[in-house]
């Protein structure tokens, strides 16, 4: 109909891979606790890009997002001795990232920064049409779309924004998002419903 459905076998395999990855993160962090610096480097390698991009979409400023991501990993490293694998590592990681992003937004620091979109638009455009040189028209259409999407996401209330970004771009499930946001799963579903509803109305003209 709308998209190819994954087969049950593929789904099970995907779940098993996800479980293995989660266990791997916890194992790596436990090794970091024992003083293994290589394990920290591996964790950084695995989660650097997701964390930076989550923060970038939250605060919409590249320099700030990298600065906040540095703080996230610094806090992870600082907490290595007290780390207990009670929750999924990703949940804990995004809890730290969300906390820092929300604090940054609430501190009103956002108003002091003004980022130019051109560099980011060009970079994104190159990825979209990597096989050929984008035309001026394509670049302009892409720039308008990205700008509208950014504005629509930015206009969402902070928690709705965080929930949508974790759900859509990071692929976290409801329990992980609830762990990261510190609320119940039903609250997460409600946040997502309202956020997607708002986005539907705000992005309808781009379809």
């Amino acid at each position: 109909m709308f998209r190819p459905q994954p087969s049950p076998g593929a789904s099970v395999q995907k779940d098993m891979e996800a479980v293995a990855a989660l266990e791997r993160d916890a194992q790596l962090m436990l090794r970091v606790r024992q003083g293994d610096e290589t394990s920290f480097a591996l964790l950084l390698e695995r989660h650097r890009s997701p964390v930076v991009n989550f923060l970038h979409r939250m605060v919409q400023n590249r320099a700030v997002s990298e600065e906040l991501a540095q703080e996230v990993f610094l806090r992870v490293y600082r907490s290595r001795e007290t780390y207990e694998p009670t929750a999924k590592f990703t949940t804990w990681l995004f809890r730290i990232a969300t906390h820092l992003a929300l604090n940054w937004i609430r501190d009103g620091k956002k108003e002091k920064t003004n980022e130019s979109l051109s560099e980011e638009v060009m970079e994104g455009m190159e990825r979209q049409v990597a096989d050929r040189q984008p035309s001026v028209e394509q670049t302009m259409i892409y720039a308008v779309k990205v700008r509208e999407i950014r504005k629509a996401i930015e206009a969402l209330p902070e928690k709705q924004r965080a929930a949508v970004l974790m759900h859509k771009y990071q692929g976290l499930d409801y329990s992980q998002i609830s762990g990261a946001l510190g609320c119940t799963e039903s609250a997460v579903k409600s946040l997502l419903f309202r956020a997607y509803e708002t986005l539907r109305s705000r992005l309808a003209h781009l379809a």
Partner: protein
Amino acid sequence: MDCIKNNKRGVEILTDYCAGILDPAVAVEIDSHIAQCAECLKMVEAQRMVWEMLDVWTPLEVSRNFDARLYSRIADEQAQPAWRQWLHRVFVPAAPHPLWKPAFSLAAVGAVVAMALVVGIPGVGVPGKMPFAHTAPSAYKNAYKNTTVQAKAGPEEIDLDQVQQALDDMELLTPVGQSPSGRL
């Protein structure tokens, strides 16, 4: 299958379906349902539009010196005295503790209980009745007795003789043939 909007888990089903993470058996049901239900098809298409639109915002490349800067910060922090590192760990926790909300509730309950105990101090309540009299220590009972005696001797105590005298005076002042209550 029920319409998505009538289903209790409709929102969850809709988002999971468009994200491609719905249980395949349920997804097949949705496929066959939206082939017949225009309203649900409209909902799915709208959600799908959002989902695809958000894909346009591609991720950025992380700066090449990200790791170097991070390791430099870690090295700087490790060069600090142990007490400063400890202070950092204690006062700048990695994330807000998940138990802060229950802790806040417990503190509020504690405050209410403390207030109730303060308000319920003997002597402030009804004189002559001592709460927890059967369990209170003797020194406490004596102290309570003294406060009760003081309360009895205080100006707020009602003297029945005085009340009777006042009523008699009122009766004397009433015109002949009329009762104090105004009735004949």
